[in-house]
């Protein structure tokens, strides 16, 4: 089932065009990986999916992006409600400089998801468990989140993202600042999360894309060169550029 359907998406930063006619379908409860060399537009596309490009004044998005029946690229869209449904994990772990508990409880609190303290406690515990962090932090929930190790911080950010039970989670190179062990933990986590969430992940690591995703899209110079099943993209791509990139001949 299609969760998100993008049609002819063009993105401009001022007069510079960053994305050219990108169309792709993201399937529900699957991991979709976006790969490509730096500056190819994959992060820009990802940020269209939760309207984070709104933050950039000069950024203009054209085309249609539908999530279920909802048009995301519409002026009338309530971005606050959209972001409640589409969580995001960033490249550099960015927990709030507050306690671990406050980091995870922030989303449910501002969206009024818990009626009582015990309900909130439950959400925090569940989210931390899902993010495979509970065992490590359950005795120090009132410590500052930024005091954790890099990998723990990133899992805290994942816990924060899933605390509001979003249907879609966007991940922008979530492992690029982490060591291989922390990376393996996050990848394992992504595998678990796809049971309940649709995941779109931007990554520089082709092996990571191959390991975690079901669909892969290859971007180059703002264009979506090829999109399809991960296995096919990595074993038998249709396009010569894709072939070159995957085999490491450029990028």
């Amino acid at each position, binding site marked *: 089932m299609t969760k998100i359907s993008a049609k002819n998406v063009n993105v401009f930063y001022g007069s510079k065009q960053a994305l050219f006619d990108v169309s792709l379908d993201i399937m529900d409860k699957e991991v979709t990986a976006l790969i490509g060399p730096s500056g190819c537009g994959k992060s820009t596309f990802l940020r269209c999916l*939760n309207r*984070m490009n709104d*933050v950039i*004044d000069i950024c203009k998005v054209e085309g249609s992006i539908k999530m279920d029946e909802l048009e995301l690229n519409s002026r009338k869209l309530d971005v*606050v*409600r*959209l*972001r*409640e449904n589409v*969580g*995001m994990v*960033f490249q*550099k772990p*960015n*927990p*709030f*400089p507050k306690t671990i508990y406050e980091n995870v409880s*922030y*989303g449910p609190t*501002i*969206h009024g998801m818990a009626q009582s303290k015990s309900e909130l406690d439950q959400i925090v515990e569940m989210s931390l468990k899902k993010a495979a962090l509970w065992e490590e932090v359950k005795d120090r929930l009132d410590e500052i989140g930024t005091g954790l190790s890099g990998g723990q911080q990133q899992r805290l*950010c994942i816990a*924060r*993202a899933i605390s*509001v039970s979003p249907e879609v989670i966007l991940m922008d190179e979530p492992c690029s600042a982490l060591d291989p062990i922390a990376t393996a933990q996050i990848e394992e986590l992504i595998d678990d999360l796809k049971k309940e969430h649709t995941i779109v992940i931007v990554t520089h690591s082709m092996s990571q894309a191959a390991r975690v995703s079901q669909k892969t899209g290859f971007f180059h110079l703002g264009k979506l060169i090829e999109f399809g099943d991960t296995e096919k993209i990595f074993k038998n791509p249709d396009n010569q550029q894709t072939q070159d990139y995957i085999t490491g001949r450029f990028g």
Partner: protein
Amino acid sequence: MNEAKRKLLNKRYRAEANFKLFGQIAIGLALLFLAVFMYKIFSKGYTAFQKTWIVTEVHYDKELMLIETDNPSLEDLENADYYEIAYKAMTRLDPSLPEEDDRQLIQMVAFTYEQEVKNHLLKNPSLLGKIVPIRLTASDDLDQVHKGNYPRDIPEEDRRVNDYQLKIYDMLNERGDILSKFNLSFFTNPDSREAELAGIASSFMGTVFSILVCLAFSFPIAVLAAIYLEEFAPKNKFTDFIEVNINNLAAVPSIVFGLLGLGVLLAVFNLPRSTPLVGGITLSLMTLPTIIIAARASLKAVPPSIREAALAMGASNMQTTMHHTVPLSMPGTLSGTIIGLAQALGETAPLILIGMVAFVNTIPGTPVDPAASLPVQIYIWSESAERGFVEKVSACIMVLLGFLILMNLAAQIIRHKFERKWN
């Protein structure tokens, strides 16, 4: 390594050594100036914290005080006549002095001696009818003589203390009847034309009220302006224009703000002249750009990743700002605010223009009472001819410096303790 290369290398080392030397000389000079300045102020000013009294005896004689009842109430004592007994308390220092020269003795104490005699009795009503020792504030000239600030070897006609008074002084001093103790009244008295009575209470309170008014006006306005400009305003030509003007405002000479206060606050709004309310508002015009700039800088220093994290969680712009950005920027904003207030603390020119230079011999109880301020007090006293005011000027500078050091220390502590370091 060939010869040319070695030469070049030596030259580079020499250049570095020279550069270091110049830097050290610069620091040395700066410290030297500071030391000279501090020495000047402290060596001149420390004597102001000592006060001189003359000890004599007073006879609380009911008859001379014109008290007719046997058991006078406090009210009777309040209304009694003290002129005669106070006068006698002074003239008894030298009974041999012919009556027409009595003024010479009276001049040795502050003109408030009669009041001091009265207050002493009101505090201890049981002294009525007794002969008791009493200490009276010495005149500023005698005070200066006692502190050694007044040269005794200049010709008598050029001296404000004549030979006879010096003789009495020496006699009293030998008897141990000249007292010198901590000058509490310097801190509790308002300004006075008489140096021995002048204190900083009115100007200190004036400064405190001005700073509070200044804080109350400038902080909320500046912080709101900074938050709006930094977090909400669209970035366009108009906001650029505003930014340039805020920076310009910070560079406007303070006297211009004084004129504005005079022309607008006093002339148009008819606020009470010479009051800390007007002074504070005028100073807040000066402090405003400083706080806006500091607040914007510390808002800018909050990394965008925190804003993105909050926005991506579905927080509105307002929530992102109020829950995350503003709390994280507060330490920087606060220390900027204190620095701004410390600047305002030392301002003189705008306060002179709005009339806070008036002679105020009452201690203000509210921001709408007339008051002076510490820097203006320094200015007023430095204009006075009496020798007694010279040490007061330095002492007042010391108090002002102490105030400034405390505020800057507070700013430093806030910055170091609460400001987050982003890596």
